[in-house]
């Protein structure tokens, strides 16, 4: 039977990861809606959500047919690739080695692209704008779908994982439409760091289970791995951090 202790890490991992992705998609949709009106923005978004729905419908039956241990190994490997990639990037950003992601900048770039197209009087501008919204929703949404499947499929946690993602979508939409500007104050790198820690922990757990490892404490081992990755990540930030150059 599913317990809160089992479901909570899956819900929180997909919730936090989805916030990052949905904020990125929302920025583009908002830029399209602001420049070209809400009709192409909403049409592009709806079409994007439709494509994502088809991807989920196509993947669902395939997952049921894969033997559980092989599924756990494959998902564990994918989670390690995904989680450690996010964790590495978040560490390098927190240490000041690579630049932080800036939603205001993304919004400005997308807005100016559409305004340029409007100035050139492109006749099918509604299509161009709708396609921009569609692409943003599909590309960021594919990441959300993967995260939900990866976190949830290994042990029948697809529904709690999907619930976490859905809650993130609703939260971003409600706040986004209320403030009506890019959600640049979301601490994206901190979220990415936290999600990288959790996905890496899930990755070690599932890959281990797929290899036949009997983890002590069973599911509770995930929390232990998360603590280890968290401490390692924090230590790496301080080791990699460059000294701040003092202006002369």
């Amino acid at each position, binding site marked *: 039977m599913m317990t809160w202790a089992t479901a909570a890490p899956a819900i929180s991992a997909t919730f936090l990861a989805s916030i990052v992705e949905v904020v990125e998609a929302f920025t583009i949709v908002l830029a399209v809606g602001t420049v070209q009106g809400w009709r192409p923005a909403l049409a592009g978004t709806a079409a994007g959500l439709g494509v994502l729905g088809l991807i989920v419908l196509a993947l669902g039956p395939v997952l049921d047919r894969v033997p559980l241990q092989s599924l756990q190994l494959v998902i*564990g490997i994918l989670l390690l690739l995904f989680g450690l*990639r996010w964790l*590495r990037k978040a560490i390098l950003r927190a240490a000041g080695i690579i630049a932080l992601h800036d939603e205001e900048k993304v919004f400005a770039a997308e807005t100016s692209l559409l305004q340029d197209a409007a100035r050139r009087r492109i006749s099918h501008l509604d299509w161009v704008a709708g396609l921009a919204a569609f692409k943003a929703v*599909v590309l960021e949404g594919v990441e959300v779908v993967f995260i939900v499947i990866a976190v949830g499929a290994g042990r029948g946690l697809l529904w709690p994982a999907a619930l976490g993602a859905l809650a993130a979508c609703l939260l971003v939409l409600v706040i986004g439409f209320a403030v009506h500007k890019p959600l640049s104050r979301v601490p994206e790198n901190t979220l990415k760091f936290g999600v990288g820690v959790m996905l890496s922990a899930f990755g070690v757990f599932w890959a281990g289970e797929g290899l036949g490892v009997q983890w002590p404490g069973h599911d509770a081992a995930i929390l232990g791995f998360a603590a280890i990755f968290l401490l390692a990540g924090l230590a790496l930030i301080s080791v*990699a951090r460059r000294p701040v150059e003092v202006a002369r």
Partner: protein
Amino acid sequence: MTLLRLIFNEIVGLFVDDEQLALSILAVVAACWLMVQYVHDDSILIGLLLLVGCLGVLTASVMKGARR
């Protein structure tokens, strides 16, 4: 087709950003799998190797990135 290529690139990009990091992770898992198949059947030892291997790969990749 451009959109399909974009989606494909996005999916690949989900997992592979730094090729060396991705290959190192796969090497750690492959080493653990080989241990399971041919060398050792102590599952805790394999699990420990997997965890330490992933931490080592992350550390090496971050330090490499920091030196750039």
